[in-house]
């Protein structure tokens, strides 16, 4: 166990190194030159060369990349080319916004998803089950940019119940629609997974044993089945917690929310690589850490799990 964790921890920096290197290379060899973008139509080659030199963008790949990693090790995420200010400044406030939004959606998703999943499993092969299943398939099938305009049309344009976008903190009406849209997908995943796990566990021996012992159906479900069915959900939960940092590119763009996702899309279009790098690194760290905790969590909840 310890050895396994240790290995995972050692792998983490290597993972980050590879992830950052790939991102850096994609940016370095990709089309579009950030200096030209900043200059736009007022471009002239000499000025561009001078600015590129000042920003150190004319050095060979591995020097620049090495420099970047060196800065990273010292907690320096670099400076945005577009905004000419430290990337960390740009990310800080936006990170918090995205985190709130996603955490709210995740919490709602879990609290709605698991009971619905259990319900569907208990009422397997009844209309309740089918309605829930159909709904969840819809939930994962409808892209954000299809759901969002429909919601906007009804809620913001026809009936003007909710504002169409913007951000005033989590506890404002502006956050309602983005959270609904985000939650839809998350609920669907939890329902599907809970239902599948429940169905499987219910079919297993120890539940049958419990049942045959004469325990009430509800007790069987809650005490035995649910607990075991929830364990695999941890993986998904872990993945999603990792995704919290990632923000949600499309939702934030559509609703004009000043979060990480929108920043990511904007930075991509401005070829602001220091920002893209920082976001990718951040998301990779979050993902890796979340997975680590999930592993830890497994070994605590389910002692049967051992690692080679």
């Amino acid at each position, binding site marked *: 166990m310890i050895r396994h964790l240790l290995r995972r921890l050692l792998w983490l920096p290597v993972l980050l190194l590879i992830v950052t290197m790939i991102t850096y290379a994609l940016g370095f*060899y990709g089309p579009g030159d950030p200096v030209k973008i900043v200059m736009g139509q007022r471009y002239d080659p000499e000025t561009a060369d001078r600015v590129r030199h000042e920003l150190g963008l004319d050095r060979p790949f591995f020097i620049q990349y090495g420099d970047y990693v060196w800065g990273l090790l010292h907690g320096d995420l670099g400076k945005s080319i577009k905004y000419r200010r430290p990337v960390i400044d740009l990310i800080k406030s936006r990170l918090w916004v995205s985190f709130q939004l996603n955490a709210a959606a995740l919490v709602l998703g879990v609290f709605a998803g698991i009971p619905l999943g259990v319900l569907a499993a208990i009422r397997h092969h009844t209309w309740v089950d089918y309605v829930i299943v159909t709904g969840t398939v819809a939930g994962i099938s409808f892209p954000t940019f299809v759901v969002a305009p429909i919601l906007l049309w009804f809620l913001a344009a026809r009936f003007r119940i909710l504002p169409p976008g913007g951000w005033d903190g989590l506890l404002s009406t502006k956050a309602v629609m983005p959270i609904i849209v985000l939650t839809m997908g998350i609920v669907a995943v939890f329902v599907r997974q809970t239902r599948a796990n429940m169905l499987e566990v219910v079919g297993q021996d120890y539940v049958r044993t419990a049942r045959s012992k004469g325990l009430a159906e509800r007790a069987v479900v809650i005490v035995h089945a649910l607990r075991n069915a929830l364990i695999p959900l941890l993986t998904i939960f872990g993945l999603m917690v990792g995704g919290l940092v990632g923000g949600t590119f499309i939702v934030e763009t559509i609703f004009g929310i000043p979060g990480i996702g929108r920043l990511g899309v904007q930075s991509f279009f401005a070829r602001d690589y220091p920002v893209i790098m920082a976001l990718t690194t951040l998301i990779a760290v979050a993902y890796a850490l979340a997975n680590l905790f999930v592993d830890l969590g497994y070994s605590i909840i389910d002692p049967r799990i051992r690692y080679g």
Partner: protein
Amino acid sequence: MGSATESAPRQPATAPRRQFGDGAVQHRSRWWNFGSRFARNPLAVVSLFIVLGMVFTGTFAPWLAPYDPTEVNYTEVEQMPNLRHPLGTDDHGRDQLSRVIWGARTAIIVAPSATVVGLVLGLFFGSLAGYFGGWIDNVVMRVTDVLFAFPGLLFAILVASTIQPRVEAWLMTFESLGSFVKAGYAEFLVVILALSLVGWAGLARLIRGQILQLKEEQFVEAARAIGARSSRIILRHLLPNALAPIIVSISMGLGGAILAETTLSFLGIGINPPTPSWGAMIYQNFNFWRHPAAPVLLWIPGLIVASLVFAFNFIGDGLHEALNPHLD
């Protein structure tokens, strides 16, 4: 969403694989059995028809579309649905129905291709990792780790935009392919490559998990004992028995690929005009969300994308149940 892949390692062992040494008869009955099970799920059947309809529409787009999808007509702008234009017209007077029909062609080319390329990569690396274990397994798993650590959409965007000029330049070096590139097919290739590169990792893990489970089974031991070569064991014994979850995940993957392609087009990466694509239609009309014509201009292409993804997911569900008899 990848829900199929997440649940994969826990996929219950499929019944058919216990029938080691079965003959052709058994084999047929298995698929027969499967067919009848699938047919018992009307939603999945309806979905299958939606998909087939879309494939038909895409294939015969030039004959089905009443108008040229790129032809403007400024005397008929933003019309509501009427007899001449069953789905109305957009802000350039282009016929929406024709654009939707041509959009189907883009979707049915890109999504299956991306899925197939991803599948081939996933099958290859997944089975290698699962069967041989050791350092091969380690390398493959670490590579998938890296891919998982990337924020999916951003990575696909970055990859697509980085390789696009290179792919185009490379294709242009072949004299005969110039018109191919000009016609916009290079963009298809770019998107297919980007999507499959991002998508194969999940499949590889799923297959590896299956193979790990299966290779302890007696029939594999037996095959090994009689000296069968590894490639034969993998291809003849392991993969066919891991087929059920793979098929399910392909079906879901197709839906996912359509979603991904639309999203990329929506962001303006990859497939570009004049090639009609649903994502581009949604993007083009997105700022009309408040306009009275929004339901026609914006919702229709959106709902078509959604219904196709929906259909693939339902087929996936239907297959899952049909291939896992003990779920009943």
